[in-house]
């Protein structure tokens, strides 16, 4: 058990290291460096920059040094001082920019995750127990369509319908009067009123997928002999269902929790952009479109970090749930 946890922890740290390399490569990838694009901007503004100034700037930014020195500096700054570089587009540190908007992204991701499981587990079990019933068919149809609709299209359609029938803008997370207001109870309520739309958008495909998985794994378990034995023993149907097949069917669900989180985090930026949420999505897209790579690379790193930590947690949960893994290596 302890060995398993240590094993997964080491794996998590290694993955983080690999991700940081990927993020750094992304930062370096666009041709030309920041000094070039700055020189370009000055040129267009009619105030060209001299070659000497350019070199000074390169030296000051440290971009004239070899890549591994730059990488080392980037990582050590990040780990030791929590400094992820400077966004030249915003003229502010990356950490500040991300820190401002990250809580909302996290709120969104976790609300979505919770909604997905709360909705999918009962529906999946019900569909398995009442296989081929009308309800089962309805849920499968909805599921198929949900899986096939790109997140942003769903967001656009919901926004269109909201505009059309409720005359309200469903974009954003606050009504105008609460936009800059300090935190208060009405503001929280207002946030909740707006939050459900992006949560539904983000969660639909994942919920559809989860329902399918739960249905399939519950169906597998329902046919097993031990279920028949328990039934023959006279346990009430509900108790039987929850105690044996459902408990078994939950294993793959918990095991893939990390992937679900990856999926939600992956979809979050695009939904944020379409619905103009004040979360990290628009910030990320803006950074990408302007090749503001320190910000973009930092965001990739943060997004990855959350999914990696999520995977670690889901591994731990699986250990708690499934004794077979707990016993592994002890026998």
């Amino acid at each position, binding site marked *: 058990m302890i060995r398993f946890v240590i094993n997964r922890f080491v794996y998590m740290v290694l*993955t983080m290291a*690999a*991700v940081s390399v*990927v993020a750094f490569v*992304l930062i370096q*990838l*666009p*041709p030309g460096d920041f000094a070039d694009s700055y020189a370009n901007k000055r040129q267009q503004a009619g105030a060209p920059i001299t070659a000497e100034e350019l070199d000074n700037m390169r030296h000051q930014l440290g971009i004239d040094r070899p890549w591994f020195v730059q990488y080392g500096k980037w990582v050590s700054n990040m780990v030791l001082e929590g400094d992820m570089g400077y966004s030249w587009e915003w003229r502010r540190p990356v950490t500040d920019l991300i820190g401002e908007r990250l809580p909302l992204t996290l709120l969104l991701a976790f609300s979505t995750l919770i909604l997905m499981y709360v909705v999918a587990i009962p529906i999946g079990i019900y569909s398995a127990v009442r296989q081929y019933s009308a309800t089962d068919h309805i849920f499968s149809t909805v599921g*198929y*369509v949900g*899986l*096939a*609709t*790109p*997140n*942003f*299209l769903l967001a*656009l*359609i919901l*926004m*269109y319908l909201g*505009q*059309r029938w409720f005359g309200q*803008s469903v*974009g954003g997370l606050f009504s105008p009067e609460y936009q800059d207001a300090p935190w208060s109870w009405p503001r929280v309520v207002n946030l909740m009123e707006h939050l459900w739309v992006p949560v539904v958008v983000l969660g639909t495909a994942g919920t559809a997928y989860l329902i399918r998985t739960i249905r399939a794994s519950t169906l597998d378990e329902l046919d097993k002999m031990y279920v028949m034995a328990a039934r023959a023993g006279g346990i009430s149907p509900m108790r039987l269902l929850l105690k044996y097949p459902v408990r078994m069917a939950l294993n793959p669900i918990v095991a893939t929790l*990390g*992937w679900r989180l*990856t*999926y939600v*985090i*992956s*979809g979050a*930026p*695009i939904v944020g*952009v*379409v619905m103009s949420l004040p979360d990290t999505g628009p910030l*990320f*897209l803006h950074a*990408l*479109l302007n*090749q503001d*790579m320190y910000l*973009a*690379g930092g*965001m*990739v790193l943060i*997004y*990855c970090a959350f*999914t*990696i930590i999520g*995977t670690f947690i889901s591994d731990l949960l699986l250990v708690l749930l499934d004794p077979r893994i707990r016993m592994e290596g002890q026998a």
Partner: protein
Amino acid sequence: MTAPVQAISLRKGRLKRPEMATQWQLMWWKFKKHHMALVGMSLLAAFVFSAVFAEFLSPAVPSERNNSYLASGPMGIHFFDAEWDFHARPFVYARTTKRDPVTLRKLSVVDESNHWPIEFFVRGSTYKFWGLFETDIHLFGAKGGFIHLFGTDTLGRDVFTRTLHATRVSLSVGLAGVSFAFILGAIIGGIAGYFGGMIDNAIMRLIEFIRSVPSLPLWLALSAALPREWSSFQVYLAITVILALIGWTHLARTVRSKLLALREEDFTLAARLSGCTDMRIILRHLLPAFMSYMIVDVTIAFPEILLAETSLSFLGLGLREPVESWGVLLYAAQNVRSIAHMPWLLIPGLFVVFAVLAFNFVGDGMRDAADPYSK
């Protein structure tokens, strides 16, 4: 003397002899039982057909601007006119332009007294069919006027025409991406499965790593890093490669696990004992045995790649004009204001949904059929 009789009844499909059928025949029988898969298959055939004959099927050419029908909605096809008289030849109502007295914007007004009958094989704008020969014959058109089945965008371009042409690009990008992913997955998975040991372990860790990283932000960042001055064709190629990088991990896993399992089978041992070379064993004995599984995986990877391309292009980080894909068309519908005025710009999105649905159905059917011996 019984042989010809049997052959005939086999052709009629009345007598199914599982013990005589080939592997692929068994698979087809199993696939046919999956009704939704057949529906998906026909839907895909329709998509491919309209992609191949896009120029001919569309009433206009994609760049054509209709200045008297700017940003206006779909035109309905009618069989009955305002007086409820039946017309054997369907028609659209004529449109006239007027200026809005307040905003002075050009408006298009329905003129119910005038009909534009729909005719087939009409002459319209010239185009080069498959880049081979010039012609001006379109499958259908409205005589005396114009027809916009899905409306027009702000420049007056026909959304229906553009959607058909985008079908070609979207499917071809998907196909190219999937093929590339297929090759990548087969080679890397093959290496892992064949050599095993350390190499296998390293490749499996790599795949695990890629799958645990949120894909969309990473691919967005990759495509944002493409040089701005690249031509749209270069971008097209680059996007294909980026899309392939999404799809290969699954395929590689399948190839590896099947290779590992089949390596231990008796027939492989028999082939080795008969003195077959490694290459011959792989190509003649192993590959046919897991080909069906790879086809399943490709079918499953296709919608994933399709959705990724659409999302990238929708955000303005994928393909760009003048190349048109479904995602590029949806780029115009990015904000609430434009979809509130022109909801028909979302129609290409429905094509995406239907294409992905079709692929998912076919994939489900194929997954069941890939192992025809299971019940």
